[in-house]
């Protein structure tokens, strides 16, 4: 565990994050290009939806990430409460904007996809609505943190909000599903055999991997910015900056 604690210190993590971030971005770019090549060029045209279906290579990974990231934020919130590690709270705040971005992308691409297939940009369908609510949860999280000036209180309040939110996310999801369902069922699930062609699935999974890599890279960069902001004036940071300048 000791190595874990060592990297829970902002002073050790800051340079490490700076070294790692470009690699994650590179991995994201390479897999993103491969995924787009498979999705836009290799994969066959869908016999029902034509070319319009190809938006899933963005839409589905974005929707997955939007949900994963919220759970991940709550996980960091729990870590923060149990171990009282400031870095966990910083990671939690660093993830939020990326999560909100993916939620927005999922909604936007969903609207663009809905127009040719359902004949309308927006319907009050269960999945669309719960994704919209998820966007509000992200916005609320960021708004709460922005409204609190004292960083320690902001961390604690945001962690608590993320935990309360993650308890409620499944309840909201199922209540909205009960309320109305028009969206096609999930095409990929762990229990049933996939209903889509293997090559489409491959393209989507590669794109999801690329989205993961992007998320890690972006949150590492953002956590560096947060560390800079919080630790401004700390001795280790002054030394580090001086070393970098040389």
């Amino acid at each position, binding site marked *: 565990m000791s190595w874990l604690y060592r990297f829970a210190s902002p002073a050790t993590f800051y340079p490490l994050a700076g070294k790692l971030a470009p690699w994650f971005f590179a991995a994201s770019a390479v897999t993103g290009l491969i995924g787009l090549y498979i999705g836009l060029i290799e994969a066959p045209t869908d016999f029902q939806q034509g070319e319009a279906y190809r938006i899933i290579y963005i839409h589905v990974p974005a929707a997955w990430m939007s949900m994963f990231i919220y759970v991940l934020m709550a996980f960091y919130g729990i870590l923060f409460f149990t171990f009282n590690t400031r870095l966990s709270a910083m990671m939690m705040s660093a993830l939020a904007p990326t999560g909100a971005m993916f939620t927005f992308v999922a909604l936007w691409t969903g609207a663009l996809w809905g127009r040719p297939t359902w004949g309308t940009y927006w319907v009050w369908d269960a999945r669309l609505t719960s994704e919209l*609510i998820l966007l509000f949860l992200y916005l609320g999280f960021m708004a709460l943190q922005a409204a609190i000036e004292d960083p320690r209180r902001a961390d604690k309040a945001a962690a608590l909000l993320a935990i309360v939110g993650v308890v409620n996310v499944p309840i*909201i999801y199922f209540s909205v599903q*009960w309320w109305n369902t028009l969206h096609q069922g999930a095409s990929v699930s762990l229990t049933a055999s996939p209903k889509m062609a293997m090559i489409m699935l491959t393209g989507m999974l590669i794109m999801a991997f690329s989205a993961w890599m992007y998320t890690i890279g972006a949150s590492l960069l953002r956590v560096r910015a947060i560390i800079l902001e919080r630790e401004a004036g700390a001795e280790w940071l002054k030394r580090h900056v001086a070393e970098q300048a040389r």
Partner: protein
Amino acid sequence: MTQAGVWAGFAWGLRRDLRLSARSSAEVLVVLGFFLIVVTLFPLSVGPDPRVLHRIGAGIIWVCATLACLLSLHRMFALDFADGSLEQMLFGAMPFPSIVAGKIGAHWLTTGCPLLLCTPLVGVQFGLSGGEIGVLLLSLAIGTPVLSLIGGIMAALTLGLRGGGALLALLLLPLYIPLLVFGVGAVDSYAAGMGIEGHFSVLGAELLLALVGAPFATAAAVRTAID
């Protein structure tokens, strides 16, 4: 933390907040007035067609109940926070989560409960049948305590923040959605001649979950504001 201490804290918090509300009873009435005026706006905006009003009546009453709860939440902690008595409660001998539970109970008794008493009247105005009003009342009776319970957490999180009111709405209303769906769903399902047990089971489950979790989460949220 003894069992007697837990109940003493609950009773103390409940009695204290009820007494404070009794001394400024205008505040309770203002929330009720807010509920009634917002409900009244809907027939004026969508038109007086009885079929439309009957269709949307239960939904409107539920939405207005959530808004009325939202509007009255600042009463729960803000004044005690401002004059320092909340801090005294936090460091006092009685277990803090049970005092918080008492305060939440008092909030429900002074907002959710009066709304319930007005609901039959408003239901009749929207042309709901007797049975529908009964189901609506039952769904509000189970649901409004959850409004106060979840509301307590968020009211504590936003204690003393600038722009607290709008922020509170942004944080809280998404969490109210399941209650809205199942509360209104029960009435719709009853009107369509289908079973309502499923809806009430979910509402009841949410009430239990909130009863167990919310006082502790609220107490933790108050601690973040005071530390």
